[in-house]
């Protein structure tokens, strides 16, 4: 028993990859069996047969043989990027400005924290009844989901700029532009990137929520339609697409973080 435990926990390459492959295989087999043994309105298998449409064939059809679906996908990505880029463009400069104006920062900090912890999802009914069903209210939802994590983390970074650095810059009569370029931006960037990674996840939730609860469109609409038709293969395939979207947004944010925040080390 003990030697078995030691073997499966060892660092041998065969064991390492074997465990991962076995677990993925087991997951796939369980999914397939569960899907085949339940009614097709409750669960869809991975590959499937005639009676039980599978998720992977559906995914393939969606991505390579369904123009409408691709349009939905593009619509969703458009919504996400518009809201996210707007949040980025506003939040990071505001965070750094707050770093420079200490009184303003102290005055607003509490309110920013309060908005950071507010579940933005609860604001969707207001946005719906005030702004209606357009494209821009949906952008506002994504924006709100993304804005505060970025602002809060940028602010956190700005707070931790070492005062000595600013003092040295001041005593050498450095220009405001040089202070931003050489101290504030490089110093706050890693924190901002942590915020951006957090915001990417939240904005994705915002995107789907906006597409569910405001005017239905994009992947959210595909999801709702499929679930209303009890088309489980469609539901699961769309969930996979959304998850892949989320993972790739996260990966992009993480790559930036590693590139520009590597010097910060592993302390956060």
């Amino acid at each position: 028993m003990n030697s078995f435990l030691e073997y499966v926990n060892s660092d041998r390459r065969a064991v390492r990859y074997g465990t991962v492959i076995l677990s993925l295989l087991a997951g796939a087999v369980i999914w397939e069996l569960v899907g085949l043994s339940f009614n097709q309105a409750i669960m869809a298998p991975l590959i499937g047969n005639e009676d039980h449409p599978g998720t992977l064939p559906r995914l393939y059809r969606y991505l390579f043989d369904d123009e409408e679906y691709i349009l939905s996908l593009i619509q969703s990505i458009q919504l996400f990027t518009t809201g996210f880029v707007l949040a980025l463009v506003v939040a990071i400069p505001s965070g750094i400005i707050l770093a420079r104006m200490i009184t303003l920062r102290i005055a607003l900090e509490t309110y920013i924290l309060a908005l950071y912890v507010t579940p933005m999802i609860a604001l969707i009914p207001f946005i719906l009844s005030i702004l209606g069903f357009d494209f821009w209210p949906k952008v506002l939802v994504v924006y709100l989901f993304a804005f505060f994590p970025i602002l809060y983390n940028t602010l956190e970074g700005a707070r931790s700029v070492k005062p000595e650095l600013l003092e040295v810059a001041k005593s050498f009569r450095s220009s405001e532009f040089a202070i931003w370029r050489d101290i504030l931006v490089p110093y706050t960037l890693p924190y901002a990137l942590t915020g951006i990674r957090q915001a990417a996840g939240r904005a994705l939730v915002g995107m789907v929520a906006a597409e569910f609860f405001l005017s239905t469109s994009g992947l959210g609409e595909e999801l709702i339609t499929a679930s209303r038709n009890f088309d489980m293969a469609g539901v699961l395939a769309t969930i996979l697409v959304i998850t892949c979207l989320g993972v790739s947004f996260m990966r992009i944010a993480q790559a930036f973080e590693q590139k520009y925040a590597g010097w910060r080390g592993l302390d956060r």
Partner: protein
Amino acid sequence: MTTSTLTPPVTERKSAGQTLAKLLWGTPLRAKLFAGVLILLVWQVGVGLFAANFVAKPIGVIMAFPSVITNPLFLQASSSTLLAVLQGLAIALVAGTVVGVAMGRMKVFDRALNFYVSGLYTMPMIALLPLITIWFGYSSDARMATIIFAAFFSIVINARDGARAVPPEFLEVCKAYRAPARYVWFDITVFSSLPYLIAGVRLAAGRALVGAVIAEFFVSLNGVGMFVLSNARSFKHNEAVVGVFALVAFGLMFELIINWVMKRYFPWYRRETHSD
């Protein structure tokens, strides 16, 4: 001569402005209060001038506050949401800690489950709602499932990181004294990963609350989320804003409870910066 006659009035004017400034934002507290009043003022005037009549204004919210707080429907809704979130969190905490600690201590579990855990952690829980409603029906079970799903994976990930960060000296002492496995797991690993667990619970609490609200929106289930939605739909925005404030208050309450428990029962706990 000219300078001596000119300077006194200048300094006097300056000091008058300075005293005003000092009065308004001289100390952090005053600055915060001043900013708060300013924000409320801008909100009140801005909405009054530019927005439709039904949009919430601070004075309206304050007027609506007592009637909402004493409204039995609202109290029932908030207790229903709170109870569901607490139950879901408790289940997710126990199950998540077990899975997370196992993953942190045994490489085989980590390798086998890492793909699923990180995949499901990044999966936006809202996308699963259609699936959850089909599986659990339009009932409070669907909300519970959403809460558990939202909370579980952040706890697993933090518990795993915590179990990995156990100082090796502790484990070596255990080994030297031939401590049985259950000591190593429950007396060393769980306690030493407590800071990480707390960070996980903090994160999970926020996600669980959001999950509960989304589920209530989607399933039309009685709760604070539904209270906000139905009031906003019938253009009673002032009442709905009180509901949003209640949600924020729940979030802050979790934070306070966690802090109190930590101070009371785990005074040795060192404060970690939050992680995501």
